[in-house]
């Protein structure tokens, strides 16, 4: 039997409540929207929590290994979610540490060295979130969503000099996801002739890109290909407006955040902004608007004045003497924010479990010990069960300084993506980290 949108609508008009013939979510969710009817669980989701300037390894690494371990001073904020996360220590990022901070960021997130040819600085291959989005992003309104709390350009790369700039304002993020174009479960598909007109405009623009593409050199063709990719993504968003919204019990249109979060005493309202971002991101996942989120809390080399600190973060990592109590306090604040993300994902019920159960979340930074820009003993935390793939509640300490890319490979595989390797050259990993696999 061939199902078209028309036959489906006729079916609904006939009193049937069963949604068939629509993309995966509508198709597999049971009538309450509480679980996938097929029993295969909810979609896999990936999240990145990133902060800049690293940690203090001595005050970060937990005591004890396996399930029986004690959280360290810097990880104290994660106490309540200890059973939901795994701490990985002692791993190393295997890229040449040529440009302090940025080499480490490229190394951990893309498994490749930073490209500094021609005077610029760029990742040379896609970052992990985009590798994952390639597989998970095809069915949702947004292929991926990026946000930055401390304003920055983010670290989400499709390729060299080809980034996905993060949203910086909670209000803009709200508008983008939950403003015009968002429909909550149960909303009717939108019948509006201007949607079709907007799509025909995009078709015309695609023709323009195509004609231009045939006249330019190889590097410009790659740039135009990305432009095309963006246009296709927007067409897809428009098409989604004409479909039934996903029927997911946990999905509720959230309230609007404040239009602005002005600095207080010249300091960013880091926590308030981050929590507003987090609430929206969590709901975006619960509403299946996207399956890939990147949460850039702060950026490499950022010199942000944190609440209570006497100097900018980056300067403190280098200039604060002794055991760096101020840097320590900043890392603790950052972990409080990561705790908020994990807790909110865990507090969101989905089916018989929580949203976090289907997630694979990576928290990491650009260096370990900031003062020396070290890439050894790298800070890595994993949260979520990835549908049962990941082991939670453990501390794994690498005895030999293994390749951090192994963790990334495991995370990608945990999402049901079958790839055999992550990274290039020395940082390439072809096996995951089995200690992390359930």
């Amino acid at each position, binding site marked *: 039997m061939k199902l078209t949108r028309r036959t489906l609508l006729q079916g609904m008009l006939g009193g049937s409540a069963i949604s068939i013939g629509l993309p995966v979510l509508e198709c597999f969710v049971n009538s309450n929207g509480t679980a996938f009817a097929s029993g295969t669980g909810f979609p896999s989701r990936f999240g990145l929590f990133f902060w800049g300037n690293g940690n203090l390894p001595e005050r970060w690494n937990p005591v004890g290994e396996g399930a029986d371990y004690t959280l360290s001073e810097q990880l104290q904020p994660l106490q309540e979610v200890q059973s939901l996360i795994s701490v990985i220590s002692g791993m190393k990022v295997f890229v040449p540490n040529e440009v302090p901070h940025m080499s480490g960021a490229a190394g951990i997130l893309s498994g490749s060295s930073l490209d500094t040819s021609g005077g610029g600085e760029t990742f040379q291959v896609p970052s992990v979130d985009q590798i994952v989005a390639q597989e998970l992003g095809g069915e949702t309104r947004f292929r991926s969503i990026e946000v930055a709390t401390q304003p920055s350009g983010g670290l989400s790369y499709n390729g060299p*000099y080809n*980034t996905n700039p993060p949203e910086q304002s909670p209000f803009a993020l709200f508008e983008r996801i939950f403003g015009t174009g968002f429909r909550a479960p149960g909303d009717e598909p939108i019948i509006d002739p201007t949607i079709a007109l907007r799509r025909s405009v995009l078709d015309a623009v695609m023709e323009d890109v195509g004609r*231009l593409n045939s006249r330019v050199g190889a590097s*410009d063709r790659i740039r135009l290909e990305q432009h095309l990719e*963006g246009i296709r993504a927007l067409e897809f968003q428009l098409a989604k407006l004409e479909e039934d919204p996903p029927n997911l019990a946990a999905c509720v249109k959230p309230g609007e955040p404040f239009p602005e979060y002005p600095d207080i005493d010249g300091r960013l309202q880091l926590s308030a902004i981050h929590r507003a971002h987090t609430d929206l991101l969590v709901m975006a996942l619960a509403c299946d608007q996207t399956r890939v989120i990147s949460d850039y809390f702060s950026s490499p080399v950022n*010199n942000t004045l944190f609440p209570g600190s006497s100097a900018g973060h980056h300067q403190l990592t280098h200039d604060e003497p002794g055991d760096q109590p101020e840097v320590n306090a900043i890392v603790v604040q950052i972990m409080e924010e990561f705790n908020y993300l994990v807790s909110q994902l865990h507090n969101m019920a989905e089916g018989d479990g929580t949203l976090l159960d289907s997630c694979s979340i990576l928290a990491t930074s650009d260096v370990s010990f900031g003062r020396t820009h070290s890439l050894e003993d790298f800070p890595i935390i994993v949260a979520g069960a990835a549908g049962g793939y990941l082991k939670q509640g453990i501390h794994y300490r690498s005895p030999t300084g293994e390749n951090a890319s192994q963790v990334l490979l495991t995370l990608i595989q945990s999402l049901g993506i079958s790839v055999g390797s992550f990274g290039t050259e020395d940082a390439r990993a072809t096996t995951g980290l089995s200690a992390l696999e359930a």
Partner: protein
Amino acid sequence: MTYRVFQLWKNQAIAGSTALLAFCFLQPGCQTAPLEWNEVSAPPPTLRRLTQEQYRNTIVDLFGEEIAVPAQLEPDTAVSGFLEVGASVTTISSRGVEQYERAAYELAAQIMDSEELRQQWVPCTPQGSTDTACASQAIEILGLRLWRRSLEETEQQALVQLADNSAEILGDFYDGLQYAIAALLQSPNFLFRVELGETDPDHTDTLRFTNLEMASRISYFLWNSTPDEELLQAALASELTTETGLLNQIDRLLESPKAQRGVRAIFTDLYQLYRLDNLAQDPTLFTHMSPDVGPSAREETLLGIESLIFDMDEDYRTLFTSRTTHVNRTLAAIYSIPAPSKEGFALTEIQDDTGRVGLMGQVSFLALNAHPVSTSPTLRGMFLREVLLCQNIPAPPSDVDTSIPEPSGNTVTLRDRIDEHLQNDFCASCHQLTDPIGLAYETFDALGRYRATEGGAPIDPSGELDGAEFSDATELSKLIANHERLGPCLVEHLHMYATGHELTTGEETAHDWLADEFKRGDHRILSLMREIILSPSFRQTALPAEEESE
């Protein structure tokens, strides 16, 4: 710029370029041969995305000041230190596509809702809700201005069809036309500057930018915006591939008030003044800190540059030694000088002996190259080396303990404390280049206020720059002004800005020629801008390199 000053400049500029040989004879030892076309080989072209400001300027220049240009657009990224270079290598993200779409519809609606703009851009009265001929006329005019070239037949047809279809569905001609305008505004032909070149009839082995491409290149360089009607007409009359035609248009463009906007954009990019929006000095420590400081500081610097270039037509080097500057109340308080009697900026002469002279006495330099709570001789020194002298300082090595000692009995001032940088050979190889000159400005705190002491100890601002000794900031600023790298560096950076790429080997002759010329003409920036446009390196291009086939 007043007309009189412009004439003055123009006479000098002519003396310095077209009539250059004549002018040259007056100077002993002067031998200027014009730069030959085939002495230069420019690299293949790249598409340049409009920066956020170029997008805004373009829309405002075409549709008037009244129009509200949406603020959310693809962000600009600095590559190799320049937003203009970033615009040549970055692309349009998915988020950017969404933002440009939204902007396009907001603009299209404003244009079609305004009676005045309708009359300006729709030169006919539509007969009914669909009127193919009328739509076609409007699209032809809009297309020429938005894409900076005439539309091709297929493009024109596609847009007319779009307008017709939309008008039919919506039952209104102007509503329909909005969709064609939205398509024009979202097209890569608008969002990117498409400058690909053509075979040069006079030199068949090279490519030159076409007349219309030259119109865009000149106008975005000098105005940071789209060509006006007259420039496009000059291009359509093939005047921009001739030297005379170019000179006429350059003069005209530089005479327009839009040139001040262009110069502002240039120095905002060259000196990274856009970073002043995020100045993060701690207001609890610096009582003069407020959100107003960064923008005020940028305005001070830009007013100074504008006045140097347009009002005075002075030597670039005086920017670093001048004792006059423009301050508002915010800055006057930081500089401890009398505030202007009226709101806004006033020209002031600073006659104290604090060493506050020229650009390096301004908050733009002092606060931008500092930490939120303390100064950084390294950052200040790096600015002097990299931005003003084009000397590349390598990134610090990794896995080195970079901490400096806290103030103690013997090491009170930062100079004492960072001595380690200079005593340790490993650190000194780079810090020797930055710290000794950065330390000259230690008499100014992280916000730019004068201080004679640090922690009760006197500050020693003396040092040496490439073999020349100085006793304080004033003397160092003078040394910078007279440094042999200062002029060639501005030439290199302005060339990068104008062409959107780092100087390539094939362009070195052009750079050296321009640098000689700049020096010979007493460092006049307007002359330099004019010479860059006339240079084969600005007018030439090459066939795109075909990288490994995909």
